[in-house]
């Protein structure tokens, strides 16, 4: 009599073939988990610890309590950049998603050269933020020069410049997600809508968009968090300029960098001032994490509720 699993060779009897997922998950998971722990979890925990410390390098941190958080909240520039970033995020969120959806919609209508357009629209996404920032600053100034001004001179130029840059960069990426979503809308539903005599708008509103909700969730999540985390483009395009100088009632000068977003503000606090400010910057970074986390969770909840099961 043969015993099952023995006579058919070792490979047949090995656990890999019999229960691949059950037993060997750890082999596949551990490298990533280790990288995540080393590259993210540990620095993150250390970052939280450092926000309660005074330090020059992470090795010489001294515990000082919540003082860093107090100075972070007292910093007018930080509060300003929060509102500036929030406004930017809302505008960029709406514009990028509406335009990306529109482009995706057009490019799924079997028009000539759709593949070429998809590639072209996606390409800006492959260029790094710093390079983009510098290129766009030259482009904007090339135009603004005719009007005797520069992107560095007006807060609103800087704002819209950044919005245009981000749209240009991100629409292609979101477009790809929307195209995938649009192609996954069940053909029978669309056909049923057609037979029932639904107009194009009704089909879009009642069939396509509800089916597209998973794509909308992921795209809004990405645009929202990307906008809040924006750093390279901000640094290269305006670097926070123009600055606004205001003498406060107590005689000190408050310098607001009027196009400085949160991430850049944290960076400038960390390196631009004396070493005592490093703890403050760290505290700002922790607040920044909580903020982005809270906003993204709220947004995910809100859009998830609208997703339909196919």
């Amino acid at each position, binding site marked *: 009599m043969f015993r099952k699993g023995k006579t058919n060779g070792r490979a047949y009897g090995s656990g890999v073939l019999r229960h691949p997922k059950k037993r060997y998950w750890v*082999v596949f998971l551990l490298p990533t988990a280790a990288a995540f722990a080393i590259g993210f979890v540990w620095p993150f925990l250390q970052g939280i610890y450092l926000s309660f410390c005074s330090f*020059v390098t992470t090795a010489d941190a001294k515990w000082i309590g919540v003082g860093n958080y107090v100075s972070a909240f007292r910093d007018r520039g930080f509060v300003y950049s929060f509102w500036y970033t929030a406004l930017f995020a809302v505008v960029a969120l709406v514009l990028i998603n509406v335009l990306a959806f529109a482009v995706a919609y057009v490019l799924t209508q079997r028009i000539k050269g759709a593949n070429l357009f998809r590639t072209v629209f996606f390409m800006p996404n492959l260029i790094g933020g710093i390079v983009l920032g510098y290129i766009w600053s030259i482009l904007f100034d090339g135009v603004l020069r005719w009007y005797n001004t520069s992107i560095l001179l007006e807060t609103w130029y800087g704002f819209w410049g950044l919005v245009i840059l981000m749209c240009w960069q991100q629409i292609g990426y979101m477009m790809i997600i929307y195209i995938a979503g649009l192609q996954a809308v069940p053909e029978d539903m669309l056909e049923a809508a057609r037979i029932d005599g639904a107009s194009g708008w009704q089909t879009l509103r009642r069939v396509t968009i509800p089916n597209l909700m998973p794509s909308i969730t992921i795209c809004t999540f990405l645009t929202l968090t990307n906008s809040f985390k924006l750093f390279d483009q901000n640094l290269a395009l305006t670097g926070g300029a123009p600055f606004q100088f205001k003498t406060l009632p107590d005689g000190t000068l408050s310098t607001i960098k009027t196009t400085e977003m949160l991430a850049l503000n944290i960076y400038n606090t960390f390196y631009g001032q004396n070493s005592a400010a490093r703890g403050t910057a760290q505290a700002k970074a922790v607040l920044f994490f909580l903020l982005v986390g809270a906003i993204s969770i709220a947004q995910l909840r809100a859009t998830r509720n609208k997703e339909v099961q196919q």
Partner: protein
Amino acid sequence: MTKRILPLVLCVLLVLSGCTNTGKPAGGEEKGSVYWLNFKPEADTALQKIAKTYTELTGVEVKVATAAQGQYESTLTAEMDKSSAPTLFVVGTQAAVDTWGDYCYDLKGTDVYNELVTDDYTLYDENGKACSIGYAYECFGIIVNEELLDRAGYDVEDIRNFESLKQVAEDIHARAQELGFDAFTSSGLDSSSAWRFTGHLANIPLYYESVADGGWKECPPEIKGTYLDNYKAVWDLYINNSAADPRTLATPGYDAASEFANEKAVFYQNGSWEYTNLTEKLGMDADDLTMIPIYSGVPGEENSGLCNGTENCWAVNANADPADIKATLDFMYWMVTSDAGTRLMAEEFGPIPYKNAAPTPNVFLNDASEYFNEGRYNVTWTFSFTPNVEAWRAALTSALTQYCSGGSWDAVETAFVSGWATQYQAANS
């Protein structure tokens, strides 16, 4: 059981294999090695040459890394946290001593310290620890292409003060079309060039204010900006007598050194560190080059020399391995005593404040000595007192940009004067 353990063992091996490389060069253990974090991109070529020579001669590994323009502080912070931290780094101002003092090895009494001819460039902390020692003097002013000046019908001797500088510059600018070159190179306000004006040019009003105050010994909490009109006069002269449109100065793309080397302008405000770049990289003839003081219309400036000083100060990492500290001190000693070392230092940096200093081919530094020997006064580097220097300069850059596009000078004054008080408070709170 073995089947369960095997994957775990594999994973552990995988992780460990990624961790075994500690970044320490093989064979560097007994001899020690040197890791120099340099802060001036323009000096990088020179330092690499020195490092290579030393390694060839002694076999001791010398690694030179250079931080990008304006990124020294962030690079140093990151590097100091590593297990293979720099053994030799730059602590060039009192503010840097306040931040990095704990990391500095006390250089007092070391062989290299004993070779110093002056204590002027040694920075001490409040306990009297010698945190850093100067390794080179530098000077800055207005670099002149004498050949072009001659073609325009003038001589360096014609420029004795702001009035004459203005007259020559305006005349050249007016005839730029016919001459084929302009008076000044572009005064770019992007990050690669703004420091020439918010740092070095700003030294002029700061220096004269300090002199009027009896000479600053430490960073004053407030400044008055008494000589800001002079700053404005020079700035106006720069931007109005150049081929570059003032409104475009903040956009990246200007390269003043190339403009100067390509004979597009006669005057170029920069320092002695540009010598190697201009003569070796850009191929200019050293005989055509000279440096004159930045005249700004301050009474008595006919007697002023160049702006001499240094932020080039060596500090040795106290937390480094003792063998590496010794290797670093030996390397420093070699640079200031050996024939090859002093010659290289003289070629690349100019006169060094050490007993065995070799003569230098750097014409700008020789000009500086000449002015000094003529009995002219030295315009010291007063800008090294600037509180939160990067933040103060960034605000000044922004204000100058606004001014260049037709904005009012008030913003520059505010950034200069109130900005100082604000940054002082921020730095000392």
